[in-house]
């Protein structure tokens, strides 16, 4: 059992709100945040909360059968590369879905869920997962 409190606390903006950055030089958006833009080299980037409004589509997926320590209770569970509507791709679990029904191209939205349990008395950490979009009319693709 490990505590790692500051490590988790430091990432609250990413875990709960997909907090990323936008480059002042070329407009590229990144999740997670970076201090240097790999595209144009700019060191000037500002915070962009809720990258992609939390909406995206499944670029690819897998069903994890052999889970690492702390994730075994949920196995097998689906993970995906989710392409957010305004650019960045996020690695995340899919939830509220029958693994059989997961498809490339499926529309998904971000939700906050329990991710990991560090033993009986350790930290319970929460973060983002994605579920099939409940209301397909909610297609707020940012300009």
């Amino acid at each position: 059992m490990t505590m790692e409190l500051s490590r988790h606390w430091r990432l609250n903006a990413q875990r709960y709100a997909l907090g990323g950055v936008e480059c002042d030089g070329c407009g590229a958006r990144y999740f997670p945040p970076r201090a240097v833009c790999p595209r144009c080299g700019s060191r000037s980037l500002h915070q962009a909360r809720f990258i992609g409004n939390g909406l995206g589509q499944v670029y690819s997926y897998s069903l994890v059968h052999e889970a690492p320590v702390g994730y075994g209770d949920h196995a097998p569970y689906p993970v995906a590369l989710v392409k957010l509507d305004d650019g960045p791709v996020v690695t995340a679990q899919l939830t509220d879905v029958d693994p059989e029904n997961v498809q490339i191209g499926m529309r998904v939205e971000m939700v906050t869920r329990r991710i990991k349990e560090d033993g009986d008395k350790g930290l319970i950490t929460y973060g983002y997962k994605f579920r099939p979009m409940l209301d397909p009319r909610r297609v707020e693709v940012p300009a």
Partner: protein
Amino acid sequence: MLGVGQVPVQELWDKSLRELAVASIVAALEDAGQPAVEALYVGNMLGGELTGQAHLGALVADFAGLAGIEALRVEAAGASGGLAFRLGYLAVASGVHDIVLVTGVEKMTERLDPEVTAALALAHDGDFEMFPGATPAALAAMIMQRYIHEYGVARGDFAIFPLTSHQNAVHNPYAMYRKALTREFYDKAEMTAAPLNILDCSPTCDGAASVVLAPAQVARDLGRPVVRVSGSGVATDTIAVHDRADPLWLAAAARSAALAYQQAGKDPAEIDFFELYDDFSITAALALEACGFAARGQGVRFAHEAGIGLDGRLPICTMGGLKGRGNPDGATGVYQIVDVVNQLRGTAGANQLDCRVGMAQAIGGSGATVVTHILEVEK
């Protein structure tokens, strides 16, 4: 290359990390004719995490009877051994040292599988790939799933990679699995991270391999077969798969191979065999594409049509690769070099090829660090 040494890859319960490393060093120095070693580079990924031991440069030098020399440990996940070899090559090529020992060692069987899985996950982005719940196998599986989707390849077509590696391991006394696989067995294998099954994944195990490097003239003067490093390239890519413009393209493999080809003055058609990094079946397909042997999206088709067995157009994993020999992570890159040297100097036994130029490529993480070497024998 003055000499090579290796220990059989297995679950070696009765051997410690230092014993494995030293056994391979003793074998390599014997093969090299006991030269006076000036430096030791140790490739290792998980000494600290799985065996509770860091500071491997000094430890291994000490127990190999070499205390006093320059010694250090190199870590770049699965590319650790390949990168240690690169440092050894640079030390000799630069003229700083004449005789350099490169050792790759990994001891993975001290812990239970979930702990080993968690340790291997350190090769990837901890906060943004592993914490959300992906695993190294799941990342490879997602690449494979997308590959199947984009290129219309059937899952079962990937079986050619593990079948080839296991077939080649049959005659390698240092390999972990010396039994050929059947397609039926592959089709029935349990899923690790669908669509990737357990036979698409290289096994964790213990192992150590060593090589002795020296200026080519030293080998010529000793009248030994001269196996020369003619190309050496290292490149990196984003640590996370999700940050790549095209997750189906191993950019660092392409770049490191291009650097090695350029230095050696070779193109892919002049490579007689390729010790590629088949940690997962999909990686083998992508490496064939990135290194110019197959067009984009054609890696699996190339394996079937051109042939990757010992009698194919491009033999790969000629002594069993990571699948059949086993994948002792940080040691693997050095085992690959040992395999190339054995092929080039004609000491590969039943799997001997008629060859002059060989290539080895070690990969760390999901292609984030890639080390490529081209070796040639003077005939």
